[in-house]
């Protein structure tokens, strides 16, 4: 029972990341009709915003310590962070400790800009081109972005620690009347799950309860009619691209302490997230979220030794197996609109 609970939590946590990326993907497909293979790169940029913030807060001045030596036997150069010089040692250290949550200040403007630049500079030229062209150009863009990140940050994963207040586990077992320690789950993963839920809720609320969102939804349903009403739907869709980029960036930023960012991290998530979108239904926002969590949980269970003992290698193929079954039996996906991908 305790193992099953932990695997459900793992699935929810993993599914939260899939859902956030898939939400952005399907938002772009639903509004602009673009299959964006560079969406994983946006997740990566978000993660590297956290790395950048960490490095920024660790910018230091060098002080020579004559009492110690470096690896060559020269006097040791000690790095004293500027934030500690400015705000005092304790306050400066606390600011550095919270670098990942603080990087939200960087992620939002950076991702809005990147989303806008990507849409205006490249993707808008491919609206009327076949999906294959869109996939090729966005995939190429993802590779270019990855190489740029590698040139600046190197190829190795970069450790990006969570705030020390969130290091450790929550003993969920005692809350559920089980033995202490039976279901211990990392605190930051719980934070990630609730953060993802909050972002998903905020996106839905924005689309559901604001005039802007109402227009976007109307545009998704019938773009031409909305345009004929004198509404500049293209402009709003461009903003939606920025919003989708922001969601992916936030997902990457908060995931940085779980998976050390590296230049290829986006690709790892991209393919799975596309499967999530297909399973959920192309263009369906609730479908993307539902499929994200369902596939996350299925993947976690498939990784259990007991399951793998019966079906070796199932952990590697479960998501694709589900996608095949869905495409064969319900091509429009779990919550896709009737007619989409059913022709």
């Amino acid at each position: 029972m305790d193992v099953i609970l932990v695997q459900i939590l793992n699935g929810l946590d993993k599914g939260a990341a899939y859902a956030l990326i898939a939400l952005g993907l399907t938002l772009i497909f639903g509004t602009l009709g673009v299959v964006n293979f560079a969406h994983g790169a946006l997740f990566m940029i978000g993660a590297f915003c956290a790395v950048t913030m960490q490095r920024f807060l660790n910018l230091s001045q060098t002080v020579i310590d004559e009492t110690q030596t470096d690896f060559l036997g020269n006097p040791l150069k000690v790095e004293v962070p500027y934030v500690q010089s400015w705000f005092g040692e304790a306050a400066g250290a606390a600011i550095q400790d919270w670098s990942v949550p603080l990087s939200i200040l960087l992620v939002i403007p950076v991702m809005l800009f990147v989303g806008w630049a990507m849409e205006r500079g490249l993707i808008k030229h491919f609206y009327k081109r076949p999906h294959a062209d869109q996939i090729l150009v966005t995939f190429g863009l993802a590779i270019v972005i990855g190489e740029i990140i590698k040139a600046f940050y190197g190829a190795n994963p970069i450790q990006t620690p969570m705030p020390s207040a969130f290091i450790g586990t929550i003993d969920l077992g005692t809350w559920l009347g089980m033995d202490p320690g039976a279901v211990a789950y990392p605190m930051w993963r719980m934070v990630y799950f609730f953060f993802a839920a909050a972002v998903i809720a905020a996106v839905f609320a924005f689309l559901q309860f604001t005039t802007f969102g109402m227009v976007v939804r109307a545009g998704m349903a019938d773009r031409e009619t909305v345009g004929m009403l004198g509404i500049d739907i293209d402009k709003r869709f461009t903003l939606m691209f920025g919003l989708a980029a922001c969601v992916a960036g936030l997902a990457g930023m908060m995931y940085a302490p779980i998976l050390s960012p590296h230049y290829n991290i986006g690709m790892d998530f991209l393919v799975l997230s596309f499967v999530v979108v297909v399973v959920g239904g192309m263009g369906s926002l609730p479908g993307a979220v539902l499929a994200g969590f369902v596939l996350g949980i299925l993947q976690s269970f498939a990784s259990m030794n007991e399951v793998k003992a019966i079906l070796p290698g199932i952990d590697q193929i479960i998501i694709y197996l589900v996608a095949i079954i869905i495409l064969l039996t319900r091509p429009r996906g779990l919550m896709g609109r009737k007619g989409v991908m059913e022709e």
Partner: protein
Amino acid sequence: MSKSNFSRRGVLKTGAIAGAGLALPTYLRADGHSGFTNAPQGDTVKIGFNVPQTGPYAEEGLDELRAQELAVEHLNGMGDGGMLNTFSEKNLDGTGILGKKVEFVTGDTQTKSDVARASAQSMIQKDGCIMINGGSSSGVAVAVQGLCQEAGVIFMAGLTHSNDTTGKDRKANGFRHFFNGYMSGAALGPVLENEYGNERRAYHLTADYNWGWTQQESIQAATEAIGWQTAETVLTPVGAGDFSSYIAPVLNSGADTLILNHYGGDMVNSLTQAVQFGLRDKQVNGKDFTIIVPLYSELMAAGAGSNIQGVFGSMNWNWQLQDEGTKAFVKSFGEKYGFPPSNAAHTCYVQTLLYADAVTRAGTFNPCGVVEALEDFDFDGMGNGPTTYRGADHQCFKDVLVMKGKENPTNQYDTLEIVEVTPRAQVEYAADHPMFGGAEASLGDCNPGA
């Protein structure tokens, strides 16, 4: 009836011209008149550095490249000479190899076997390289070693830790300076017994490919030999990223030790996530839960940050060793690049010098002469103490380091500490050991190519 115009003199003349014409292209080819592939012409000799410059092990590959460039400088008489000053053999005098200036070309393996083979092939066929050095990954090493054997050039493997490289996949034209999974197990076993006793239950998470399998086999054998039980062995996909679903079952498995047979980014992620799941804070069977990473590298240690503190592992070499050879190399490398070299860099640097020395001792670039010079070659002054390249399998035997993540690092390079320098005798094994292909494993014949 037709009349023949052939005369004896005419036939001889025509035959001589035709023969010379046919022989000329062969003569002009380097390997034609020397009896081996890519015999150096003129006053230069070219060697190829085939390392990952992109992909997951790019940082290690680039460090290997730095060290190899430094070795070429030293061979050509530039810089301070590095380990040439401490090497027990004194054949290399800074005038290149056999009086020929050393040049090099580089290739990018991308840590992919097919790409690495293509890159090595290009260096041999297009650039005329006579030796291929470096790399990171056992899969790549085995693939390139096979190619070099077929092409008739020497291959000096870089960072490859699988038993198979000099085990069942050993080749006459290939040599390995790096240690292997068996040696890691042999070195770690007694240290783990001293530290944690002999009543532990170990849970293995293993990268699902050649290196992971052989390392798990070696470490499992070593820990079971000291009385530990193996609770479970689980294969994990390479590049899984999120290992949470593999780590969660460890929590309630009854195991009190997690052994991570992972390398590179996978190791950084699995170790970090294991720590996040609170494994190191747990008590199981009345003992503190512990994590072991059998194969360490400085770059991985830097990537894992504070999670590595107190975690045991092993290394081929480390810049903190205090022998004269290590000090000379660290000084050379540190002054040129501003940071200490990794053990992958050390391996590739040493191999370049050893190849040059073997050519000099053999008096020829012919790979079969080089193989003969390297087989059962004993030397010292290259770090790790007295060292031998065993003739039976072309594996290097020397002291092995048991390392531990530093508890209180003082700077960014101070991530690991040397716990023990395990003497070479403790990590030696028979060339026909079952983990190394048994009696059936064979080097085959040296191939000079041509």
